[in-house]
């Protein structure tokens, strides 16, 4: 490989790679250490104190976690986060994969379609969430109006006033926002699969389902692993949609861990408690990151990349 000989040569010519590397890393490392690594540690520390806004706290051990353990609102937010992440991720995966398969066919205006369908992901979530808020209005909801005109329901749906209605509504908004990302990423994966594999399988008499199950799916697995890790991660820590559409209401029914953490820490002033809630998300995130890491390794292994 020219890579390794090239590396060796460059290494010989430039003895100062380490010093130069350090210098080049300096701006990025400084910003990340000061504004990312340090706050991460500070957050853990804050979770172990009784800090409030305007009052420096003292170390109280696991006191915050103990009180959270017996806090029904906290457990409700954990439950909501699980439902929200689980349902939305599965739906995003299913619908996103379907859309990717549709876009991968020989259709007209393909790139135009792809460009247009990515819009929900490009536009600021906060702003599209406002549109959903209006669509879910209790008196002037366009969805209710259409369903009434079609004769499917008799009265306007109370989208955001009922616990489960509100949950489904925010989940629907999240799915809407997430489908394009999943679809376009998987489409990129689909386009790397050689058509000759399909031709060979077709000649061997494979059905459409067999083509998908035994050609498309195995070759797509690594990229699915990565895309879904990202999707799960960002759904799990979602804040904007909930904050705009329901603010956690009605009666905490849609609070996610992130929104509850904000609610307690900033308007509530209980910085330490908020930090403890945020830190309670870390184990879940670590699990997702580990899965993503092994997904990456497997993809490298599949492609035969050696470092």
């Amino acid at each position, binding site marked *: 490989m*020219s890579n390794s000989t090239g590396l060796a040569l460059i*290494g010989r010519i*430039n003895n100062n*790679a*380490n010093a*130069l*590397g*350090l210098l*080049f890393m300096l701006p*990025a490392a400084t*910003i990340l250490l000061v*504004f*990312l690594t340090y*706050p*991460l540690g*500070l*957050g853990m520390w*804050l979770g172990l104190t009784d*800090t409030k806004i305007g009052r420096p706290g003292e170390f109280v051990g696991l006191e915050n976690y103990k009180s959270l353990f017996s806090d029904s609102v906290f457990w409700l937010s954990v439950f909501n986060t699980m439902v929200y992440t689980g349902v939305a991720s599965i739906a995003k995966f299913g619908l996103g994969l379907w859309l990717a*398969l*549709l876009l991968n*066919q*020989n*259709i007209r205006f393909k790139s135009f379609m*792809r460009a*247009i369908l*990515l*819009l929900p992901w*490009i536009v600021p*979530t*906060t*702003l599209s969430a*406002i*549109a959903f808020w209006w669509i879910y*209005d209790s008196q002037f909801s*366009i969805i209710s*109006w259409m369903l009434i005109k079609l004769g499917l329901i008799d009265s306007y749906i109370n989208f955001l006033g009922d616990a489960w209605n509100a949950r489904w509504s925010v989940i629907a908004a999240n799915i809407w926002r997430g*489908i394009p*990302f999943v679809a376009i990423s998987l489409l*990129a*994966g*689909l386009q790397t*699969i050689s058509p000759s594999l*399909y*031709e060979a399988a*077709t000649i061997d*008499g494979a059905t*459409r389902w067999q*083509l998908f199950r035994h050609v498309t799916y195995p070759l797509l697995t690594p990229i699915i692993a990565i*895309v879904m890790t990202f999707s799960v*991660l960002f759904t799990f820590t979602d*804040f*904007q949609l909930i*904050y705009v559409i329901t603010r956690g209401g009605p009666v905490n029914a849609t609070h996610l861990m992130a929104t509850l953490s904000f609610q307690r*820490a*900033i308007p509530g002033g209980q*910085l330490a408690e908020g*930090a403890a809630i*945020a830190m309670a998300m870390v184990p879940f995130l670590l699990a997702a990151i580990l899965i993503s890491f092994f997904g990456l390794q497997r993809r490298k292994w599949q492609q035969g990349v050696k*470092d």
Partner: protein
Amino acid sequence: MTTEDPYKPAQPNANDHAEGGMDYLVTRKRKLVTVYLPLGVFSFVLLFPFYWMTITTFKGKEDLYDYDRNSPFWVSNPTLANVKKLLFDTAYPEWLWNTMLVAVSATFISLFASVLAAYAIERLRFKGSKWVGLCIYFAYLVPPSILFIPLATMVFKLQLFDTRWALILTYPTFLIPFCTWLLMGYFRSIPFELEECALIDGATRLEILLKIVLPLAVPGLISAGIFAFTLSWNEFIYALTFVSSSEVKTVPVGVITELVEGDVYHWGSLMAGALFGSIPVAILYSFFVEYYVSGMTGAVKE
């Protein structure tokens, strides 16, 4: 695959995926039902909120609330009152300017730091560069929703609270990992031989980076740049937490916190605020669609 018909014998030529190859064997009717119909439904659902946002912006009071006399899907009496209210009675133009300023500054800081870092990790191969690369990837996975509380206390201590600097300095925490990761992929695709030639000709590392690597990585720079700009433009939780006066708010925060007054929602101007906050990124996007797609898929694939 919901389109599968279990009672039909297997159609050996109904190839779902081949790019054109065996596509001619799929009947037109079948394609209409299995491809164009679902695509149509997807497009309708994914685009409807934008259509709704746009027409609500230009609706007057009677259009907005009376669905029986005026069809809700169309504007019978278009009016610019909502837009006028937004632009002249609120601080919206200021928010737009702030968002632009913060997004552009954060993007430039991040690009500068990321180019150097990506080049060092990918090409200088200093001791431990592999681990640093991995750390950058993990840094990208740290979500703002677990960082905003400790960052808020830091911003307060550094006396940056309620300034644009609070946002300009904290946005790079999610922009740098993303851009570095993306640029590492682009740098990897530039042949080593070019650098070797330049080294033999006596160029320094900095010269190589500026005169050889960067010009070749322009598509990567554009991808990283527009992505960083979009991510900063869309950022919400930091801006909501670190800023409280109207003069320094960004568009997403301003619209949410100031256009919503009490229990009476001015849907017209709210939608106008959402529409005009979306248009800049939509325009940028329309010019650079391919870069967005390659940036997004590149970051996932690498």
